[in-house]
């Protein structure tokens, strides 16, 4: 597969997963918190979210103070925020446009429809029914995944798409857990707002119902962390995504064993093993935040190594590389913690 095609598949996966997570997170928090939390608590939650996703500075330049209404505009329809829903879907669609010959026409038509449906949206639509707009994005992302799964050949394109998706997903789940209410193993959510933060963390990963199946409805921070970090069958747990990431890289590498490829396999395998054999005791003795920072750092390194191994094919000198005729995916890089 062409390196450029592989990279486009990878970024389609990442952009769509990022849009899906953003839509879900914002929807959950907007509805839970605007009703219950105080203005200050809302601002804290949005600030932490924007900081986590690396968008805080851009937000402050455009809007100044962190206010729920402005944040919503910023993360959904804002044209200047590369990670707004509109721009994420546009980025996925642009990548798809460049590899149309490699996509099933169903995928291309669906994604194109999605792009146009979102491009038409204005702030009037956002405020007329915020929930509807966010649900539309989230559900369309789910459906797109289904169209991909139902129509794409299981080749490297499909693998790179899933690799992008899993790396993004793992990172986003890890960031969800990194909140004060979950950072102490002994805390019990007492205040209603604390209870809601726990609930929001689970729901943002679409994990509340799955969690209940294993731990009843009682929200215990330790159990939430265990579930979102270590669960072996929940598709959004960090562990699950690291296993997938490792398997996918092995699959893509196939018989080739260049040094960059070996390095990528080794790094992904190490992260998967860390999560497979990790324990809550270890997490809390390291400190939840520090542990997650390590995980994110590792995801980041894997992502860079994947780029080196597969997207920057060697065999030509860097100097002969023509400059890019059109912009690369606009997604900002995963933030280093």
């Amino acid at each position: 597969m062409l390196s450029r095609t592989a990279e486009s598949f990878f970024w389609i996966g990442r952009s769509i997963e990022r849009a899906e997570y953003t839509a879900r997170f914002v929807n959950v928090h907007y509805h839970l918190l605007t009703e219950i939390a105080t203005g200050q608590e809302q601002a804290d939650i949005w600030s932490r979210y924007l900081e986590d996703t690396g968008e805080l500075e851009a937000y402050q330049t455009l809007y100044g103070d962190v206010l729920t209404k402005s944040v919503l505009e910023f993360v959904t329809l804002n044209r200047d925020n590369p990670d707004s829903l509109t721009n994420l879907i546009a980025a996925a669609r642009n990548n798809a446009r460049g590899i149309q010959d490699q996509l099933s026409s169903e995928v291309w038509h669906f994604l194109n429809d999605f792009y146009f449906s979102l491009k038409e949206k204005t702030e009037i639509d956002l405020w007329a029914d915020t929930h509807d707009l966010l649900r539309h994005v989230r559900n369309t992302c789910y459906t797109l995944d289904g169209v991909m799964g139902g129509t794409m050949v299981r080749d490297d394109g499909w693998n790179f798409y899933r690799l992008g998706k899993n790396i993004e997903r793992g990172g986003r789940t890890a960031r969800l857990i990194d909140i004060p209410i979950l950072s102490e193993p002994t805390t019990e959510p007492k205040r209603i707002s604390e209870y809601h933060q726990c609930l929001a963390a689970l729901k943002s990963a679409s994990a509340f119902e799955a969690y209940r199946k294993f731990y009843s409805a009682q929200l215990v921070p330790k159990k939430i962390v265990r579930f979102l970090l270590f669960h072996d069958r929940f598709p959004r747990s960090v562990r699950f995504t690291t296993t997938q990431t490792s398997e996918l890289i092995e699959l893509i590498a196939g018989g080739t064993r260049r040094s960059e490829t070996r390095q990528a396999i080794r790094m992904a395998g190490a992260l998967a093993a860390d999560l497979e054999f990790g324990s809550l005791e270890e997490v809390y003795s390291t400190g939840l935040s520090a542990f997650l920072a390590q995980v994110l750092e590792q995801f980041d390194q894997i992502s860079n190594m994947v780029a080196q191994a597969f997207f920057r094919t060697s065999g030509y000198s860097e100097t002969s590389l023509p400059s890019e005729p059109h912009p690369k995916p606009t997604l900002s890089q995963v933030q280093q913690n």
Partner: protein
Amino acid sequence: MKSLFDRYPMKSGFDEMFESPGIPRPHYRRLFERLGNVPLKDLRLKRKQADQAFLRQGITFTVYGDAQQTEKIFPFDLLPRIIPNTEWQIIEAGTKQRVRALNMFLVDLYGEQKILKDHVVPRDLIESSEHFQKDLVGFCPPKGVFIHVSGIDLVRNHEGQYYVLEDNLRTPSGISYVLENRLVMSQLFPNLFSDMHVRPVDQYPAQLLENLKGLAPLGKENPTIVLLTPGVFNSAYFEHSFLSLQMGIKMVEGRDLVVESDKVYMKTTKGLEQIDVIYRRVDDAFLDPEIFRKDSVLGVPGLVRAYRAGNVALANGIGNGIADDKAVYTFVPKMIDYYLKEQPILHNVPTYLCGIPEDRQYVLEHLGELVVKAVAESGGYGMLMGPSSTKAEQDEFRKKILANPRSYIAQPVVTLSHHPCVFDGTDTFNIMGRHIDLRPFVLWGEDITLSLGGLTRVALKEGSLVVNSSQGGGSKDTWVLYGDE
């Protein structure tokens, strides 16, 4: 009985569909009967569905110079254009003859240059053209074929006589619309095609692929064939991806390729993979920064070296631009006589070369009656439509012609034939005549073959004679019949 076409205002000139008001030509009779009963509001709905289908599929082009990079659909008109078999045979024989002569001209120009030595075509006309690739003189491409794919633009005058307006021998586009228009048409009107005896258009990609395979360096059983596109911002990008998909070949950009030891490779996730044949949709000027434009990021450094070494085949060949130059066009009938010893089957529109003093004087004295075209421009840019031009525009062209006579030609205005089209006004929805042309696509492999039909473009603006998509043109499904009715 009331018919959809009752209120169609027939204009002077040649109407493709009607002999006289209410009387369709024989090859349109079935369509007239079938569509005549369709209520206008149904047509309006069909039209909307067609637009949505094109947009969803990304069958769009980008308007150059538009800062927003707006993607527009190429408007599709619901009423098909029909060509009876007898007429088609003339078109087929005429375009094949023309392409054969033009290819011989290229072989000659980049070889012995007999036609110049015999003073049939003036040497300075050739050597002053930027499209003549001097560096390639002495190189003959595999099997002596330069023109693997061409699009010949035909128009009909007020008597219905066919004329060649332009030969497109470089990277002609439009075939994807031919195929997509048929597909959309058959989805919108599933019952329309039965008993119509319309020849199918969809063998084109397979034929092109077969021809491309035939170009592979000898001994290659399963050659690697790719389509080289300038990228998503090219106005024909949809077509590039469409053809790649249809042929099942990879679409690459210049940045995906690299030349090592005069061989072309693509960069893949598993390393470098050698390429044997490139269907290139990048113009000569951008193809290889080593010998053409140094600032090109769309091409591949060293590609021409690999081509000359015979390690990669290109379709089309390099240097074709000299043969579809608007000034060289004038000499095509002479080429047909010179190389083939035949009479031209399809005629040229009379053309004045501003580089020739007598012609120039005539043009300058008759600017208000002529169409003036810059020889290097295409796509309907850089034109003066004499009859509808202002004094200021004429003065501007007068200056341009005097400053650079070789760069301009002029032709009398051909009153193009018109065809009924469906229009959706603010409060009316009706059928009116608009000017059309026809671009059949000619493929050269073991044999020379034509797309069955071609692209019919429509000048959708009232009275306009310019059919280019960038100038507000649209297109129609084009039917070639098995018979004449």
